[in-house]
């Protein structure tokens, strides 16, 4: 045995070392506990250099850029171009400074406006695992940061605190493939789970194909994950297509979690309502609202065309005969009613238009076999029209009207 071990001594040591680490790994996974002491020591040893590194970053990068840019400048234009480049760099530097100031200002405004209690923090370092999306921020337990707190910016969400140390905290970014987040759409309030693939693409899962999610629609935090308060912007939909079983909704994160320098840690989250979607404008031209629908104005309209007059006449006939046009079970109206006897005391108010229409009505065509209708204003005759002008067959001799007759009934027209 000893000979065997001494012969494979190196391999034995390798197996022992790997097995020891595997057992330790299994213990951590099984006990679901983090080896806090080791991490606290390591992080506490590394993070104090953050200030130095930040100072180096801010003070020396510009110098290095100057050096490398000016290295290839031709000699004869060296001074002029150097000035130009220096001014350009200064311009870029000032722009960056301005952008940083504006971002800090936006952060302050957002911090003042949001009902949630937040604390500003600065990103100071990345994780050592390239595939894991995590950063360190310069706020720890001494600042009130606790594990599980949400980290946001005014533009959107960033991640959640996964480890807290005295002076720093580790934030798992929302782009990490193990990160899940409850989200809700703005228009249809469709709920889903945000999941990123670790390569920069994020999609909302568990949305049925029947649900309606439009392109460019906003998604907000739903608050169901108990990490992010409801109502924080997440991102906009870049594509929404039906998939196999579930809808494929890809979104573009608005917070840019990987590139932020300043963030806000939500100490006490307050749920907010998701802002309503802006109304869709279908018509490009401005139009007045429709006029109010009142019957009075409609009744006062006088018939102007012949069609209006006929329509009005039919409406009157319908009213008189209690007929409802288009109604089921309504009897057919008689469109050739006998005229009502005209009296001088006939009310003209509701039939004002009717009286006018009869007064101005054109002479009706005479139908053979139909009773004659007298002309208006000639109602002084006591004899009926049928007696006065009997319908005669064609070719029958006509009788001359009496001279003393008061009727001015015209001769029947020839058929």
């Amino acid at each position: 045995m000893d000979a065997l071990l001494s012969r494979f001594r190196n391999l034995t040591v390798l197996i022992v070392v790997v097995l020891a680490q595997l057992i330790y790994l299994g213990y951590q996974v099984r006990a679901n506990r983090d080896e806090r002491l080791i991490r606290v020591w390591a992080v506490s040893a590394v993070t104090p250099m953050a200030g130095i590194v930040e100072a180096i970053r801010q003070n020396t990068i510009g110098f290095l850029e100057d050096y490398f840019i000016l290295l290839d400048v031709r000699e004869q234009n060296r001074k002029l171009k150097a000035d130009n480049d220096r001014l350009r760099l200064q311009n870029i530097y000032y722009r960056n400074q301005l952008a940083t100031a504006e971002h800090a200002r936006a952060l302050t405004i957002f911090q003042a406006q949001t009902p949630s209690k937040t604390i500003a923090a600065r990103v100071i370092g990345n994780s050592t695992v390239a595939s894991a999306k995590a950063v360190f921020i310069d706020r720890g337990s001494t600042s009130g940061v606790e594990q599980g707190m949400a980290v946001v910016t005014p533009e959107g969400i960033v991640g959640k605190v996964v480890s807290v140390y005295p002076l720093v905290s580790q934030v798992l970014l929302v782009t990490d493939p193990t990160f899940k987040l409850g989200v809700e759409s703005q228009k249809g309030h469709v709920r889903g789970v945000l999941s990123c693939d670790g390569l920069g693409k994020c999609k909302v899962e568990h949305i049925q194909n029947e649900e309606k999610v439009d392109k460019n629609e906003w998604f907000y935090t739903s608050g169901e994950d108990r990490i992010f308060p409801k109502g924080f912007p997440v991102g906009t939909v870049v594509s929404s297509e039906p998939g196999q079983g579930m809808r494929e909704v890809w979104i573009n994160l608005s917070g840019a979690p990987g590139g932020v320098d300043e963030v806000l840690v939500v100490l006490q989250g307050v749920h907010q309502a998701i802002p309503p979607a802006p109304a869709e404008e279908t018509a490009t031209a401005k139009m007045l609202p429709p006029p109010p629908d009142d019957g009075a104005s409609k009744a006062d309209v006088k018939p102007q065309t012949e069609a209006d007059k006929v329509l009005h006449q039919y409406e009157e006939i319908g009213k008189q005969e209690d007929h409802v046009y288009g109604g089921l079970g309504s009897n057919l109206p008689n469109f050739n009613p006998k005229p009502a006897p005209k009296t001088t005391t006939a009310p003209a108010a509701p039939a004002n238009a009717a009286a006018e229409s009869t007064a101005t009505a054109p002479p009706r065509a005479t139908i053979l076999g139909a009773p004659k209708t007298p002309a208006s204003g000639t109602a002084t005759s006591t004899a009926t029209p049928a007696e006065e002008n009997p319908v005669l067959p064609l070719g029958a001799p006509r009788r001359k009207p009496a001279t003393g007759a008061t009727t001015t009934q015209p001769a029947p027209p020839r058929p």
Partner: protein
Amino acid sequence: MNETTEVILARRSAEQSWFSRFQAVALLAITMLAIIGKFYLPRLLPHTEWLELPLLLTVYFGLMRRSQIQALFFGAFVGLAEDSLSPANIPIGMYGITKTLVGYFAASVSLRFNVETRLMRFVLSFFFFFFHAFFYWAMRRALLGQIVPFNPQDKLVDGVLNAIVALPLFAILDRMKLSGS
């Protein structure tokens, strides 16, 4: 052997001891610098997440030290130090196991081949980077059940970039004689 020879040998031994101690301290310092650099470098120089300086140091130590046991312990130390700065959802030991294997295999290769040529160093750096990335991904998926992406094309490109960086880095380390060989 006269007295003078003994004095010279004693002085040389003391110098070698001091140099060996210096080598150990320098190696430790450079290793810590590499690990801390991985923590801060993406902040200083954007888009440098692909650079695996701790891994390159492990490969170099394994190749030049030619001792499997020392190389595997060195790899375990570097990996565990990296693990202590990893996110809390990744338990300590993932990088430790991976880099232990890398150190052991690098030392094993150095016992059979001449690893001081540039081509060999380039090929081995590329191979060990890809092995490291793939083994870490497989362990994370198999042991932790975490579904994380693995894009072979990206890893191949990163491997080439790391191998390119490895050539001047190994040359500098050769001049510092940090291998102690």
